[in-house]
């Protein structure tokens, strides 16, 4: 078989050269001179917007992308400036950040941790992104936050509602503006008690991943505190689209409230199916059967349509709020795209501005300087009233909205109406609360 003309000497030589070639990269380990990863040296600074463009949260992802584009326009001084005019900090002048024009790259997370990390890696390694934002699933957000911590760039979480993102998976390089499951539950429970009474039996359907678990645990704890009982909790796979098999057993369980710990496309399907099963027309234990959706969004309301009439849920923000910041943002978003922004769009827009502002205040893009600028930062004028970025866990604390579905809405954007604005004090918790325990921020990492 061996018919090659290679001599032993030749093989040894090539082997030695190949070996040297293999070892070369190790000789230059201290290659880069910059103090931190992707130090922007040119005239522009690159952000990476990593959102789901496919999968169950794709609608949210597309709206996030719109908001990011708007934010970049405003930072570069195009358009009407939006919330830059109402923001309590005046470090940004609408001429980019620290004299550098803002550029951005986008990627598809596919609502999968793996794909999201690959996409974020390529933004960091190939495009030189200094900050990554986005994510419409807590699983993805947690995974990408971990990656950013290792790579030494800042992660400004977009839509992620799990307690774990700033709880047991919190990281020094990661920041979250969006509210979380605990806050949803704390805001909802008193309203639920008022509307439906203290003697209720709840049946939970829960998306089977980090967000679903913490959402379910939070709402169960909060409703049990006002006197409710939890009859059962059934976990459903995130990739499922048909929930009829899960809904049928609800009626025989003796429960009189169904809590749907679902989000995005999942929630649209499960809610629609629950309504089609006639759950809301039933009387159980002498009481009207009710459905609760702890985390609401405008896009889900749009998907579920008239089915959401009378159903309670919580949101981070609403375009119907009447403060100056909200009005400015809704106006510029509406002018550009022709419809009002969603929660997801708002939080992503705000996160981009907050990062830019922190860089401007710190006078540097060094992640450690930005961490320092954001920790304990208090601001106003971004739509949620007075807000604090808590230093202990990098979570924003602000008012939470309880909203109710309105079946008689004039159009698909009016489907939700605000029932109550729960003040920030009512949703604040200690950073070592048992639902958030076990995490450590660690040290800030500036990378290279």
């Amino acid at each position, binding site marked *: 078989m*061996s018919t090659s003309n290679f001599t032993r000497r030749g093989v040894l030589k090539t082997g030695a050269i190949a070996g040297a070639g293999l070892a070369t990269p190790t000789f230059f380990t201290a290659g880069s001179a910059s103090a931190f990863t992707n130090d922007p040296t040119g005239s522009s600074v690159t952000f990476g917007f990593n959102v789901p463009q496919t999968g169950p949260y794709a609608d949210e992802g597309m709206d996030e992308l719109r908001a990011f584009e708007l934010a970049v326009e405003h930072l570069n001084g195009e358009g009407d400036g939006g919330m830059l005019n109402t923001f309590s900090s005046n470090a940004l002048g609408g001429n980019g950040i620290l004299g550098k024009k803002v550029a951005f790259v986008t990627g*598809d997370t596919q609502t999968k*941790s*793996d794909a999201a990390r690959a996409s974020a890696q390529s933004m960091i390694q190939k495009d030189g992104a200094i900050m990554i934002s986005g994510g419409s699933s807590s*699983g993805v957000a947690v*995974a990408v936050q971990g990656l950013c911590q290792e790579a030494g760039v800042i992660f400004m979480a977009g839509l992620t509602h799990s307690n774990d993102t700033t709880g047991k998976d919190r990281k020094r390089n990661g920041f979250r503006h969006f509210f979380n499951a605990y806050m949803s539950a704390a805001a909802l429970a008193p309203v639920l008690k008022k509307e439906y009474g203290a003697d209720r039996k709840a049946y939970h359907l829960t998306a089977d991943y980090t967000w679903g678990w913490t959402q379910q645990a939070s709402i169960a704890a909060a409703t049990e505190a006002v006197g409710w009982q939890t009859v059962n909790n059934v976990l459903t*796979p995130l990739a499922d689209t048909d929930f009829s098999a899960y809904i049928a057993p609800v009626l025989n369980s003796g429960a009189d409230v169904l809590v749907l710990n679902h989000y995005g496309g999942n929630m649209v399907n499960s809610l629609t199916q629950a309504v089609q099963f006639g759950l809301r027309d039933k009387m159980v234990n002498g009481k009207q059967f009710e459905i609760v959706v702890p985390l609401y969004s405008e896009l889900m309301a749009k998907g579920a349509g008239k089915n959401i009439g009378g159903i309670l849920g919580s949101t981070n923000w609403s375009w119907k709020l009447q403060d100056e910041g909200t009005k400015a943002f809704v106006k510029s978003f509406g002018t550009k795209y022709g419809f009002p922004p969603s929660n997801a769009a708002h939080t992503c827009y705000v996160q981009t501005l907050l990062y830019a502002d922190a860089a401007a205040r710190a006078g540097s893009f060094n992640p450690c300087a930005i961490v320092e600028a954001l920790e304990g930062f208090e601001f106003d004028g971004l739509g949620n009233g007075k807000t604090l970025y808590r230093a202990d866990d990098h979570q924003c604390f602000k008012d939470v909205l309880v909203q109710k579905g309105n079946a008689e809405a004039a159009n698909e954007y009016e489907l939700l109406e605000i029932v109550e604005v729960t003040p920030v004090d009512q949703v604040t918790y200690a950073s070592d609360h048992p639902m958030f325990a076990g995490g450590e921020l660690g040290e800030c990492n500036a990378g290279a």
Partner: protein
Amino acid sequence: MFGLNSKDTRAFLLIATLAMLAPILLNPFPTGSALAQFNAGYPDLMQRFVIFGIFAIGFNILFGLTGYLSFGHAAFLGVGSYSAVWMFKLLSMNVVPALILSVIVAALFSVFIGFVSLRRSGIYFSILTLAFAQMSFNLAYSVFTPITNGETGLQVYNSDPQYLMAEGDPTVTHFFGLEMRETFTLQLGGWSFDFAAGYYMCAFLLLAAFYLSVRIFRSPFGLTLRAIKSNQQRVNYTGLNARPYTLAAFVISGMYAGLAGGLLACMDPLAGAERMQWTASGEVVLMTILGGAGTLIGPVLGAGFIKYFENIFSKINDTVLHQWFAFMPDGLENVIVTIVHPFIGKGWNLTLGLMFMAVVIFLPGGLVEGGQRIGKLFSKRTPSDAASTADRPTE
């Protein structure tokens, strides 16, 4: 060389050269130019090229030689990743124990699945493997969450025990102190080339995997597997029990998948259940067929092709398109962007699907056949050479 005939040596040297020079070859466009969008020479993607190359080479040992089409190979990839991350959590961030365990666990797992599935052949075998992989996916996704951390994915935390970790050891994955993310960047004029330690570690393992696969293809064992592919009944009638051979091939390819899974975790210490999903199993089938099933070099090409589309095309967005076509009049520019829009960004699957169809219809032998045809065009004058290559489609 090394017991290979001259033709295989050439193939091996070709792969070796490509692998070693990939950081340069894959970055043909100067950074900052408009075409830099198509550069693929950054460490993360190159690592994926090589790792999925290993995965596809292993798959090809089963599919290309025995003809058994497994639709569940992603299960071994996932198991390999989980094992590796557990090693990081329990021992230290050194990649060696992680890789060893991931190969062993994948082997055990494939012995079990292979033993059951190989009792049937053809479509029944495919369905059995698919069922096992989906079971593993669902188990990893919900039932085994304490081991796999469910949808969030298994990660390494500061609070993990890491019994072998000494004070001052790197907290990122490393090979006896050489950090996997260590990168040397070479600036040459407008070009910038990244040479990453992690990439070269993967490339080295790819070469080892490729060499082993060549030896298997050329061994009596490989010949038996081919005999099973062409006519299993006849093999049985000659008194040879085929099942131990197919099981061996199944386990070997499972170990390759485990190694690939372990490497994925070494480059990025996170393991998610979606690595086991049926789409991931289908992807390796696509890679092998796209590159050329049964050929030595094909699966590596196919893996590179698919990963390139997934990572490069999915990142082209409308803004980028408008930059490209900015030289056109406004109306025309918008028309062109509208036409191209469905094929880029989230539409990368569509583009890939069209390419796949074109390859399967016009080049049934995959990209390798394309290469052979081009080669033949240039060597028309020496018909004897052309004939000898045409006779050996399995190379």
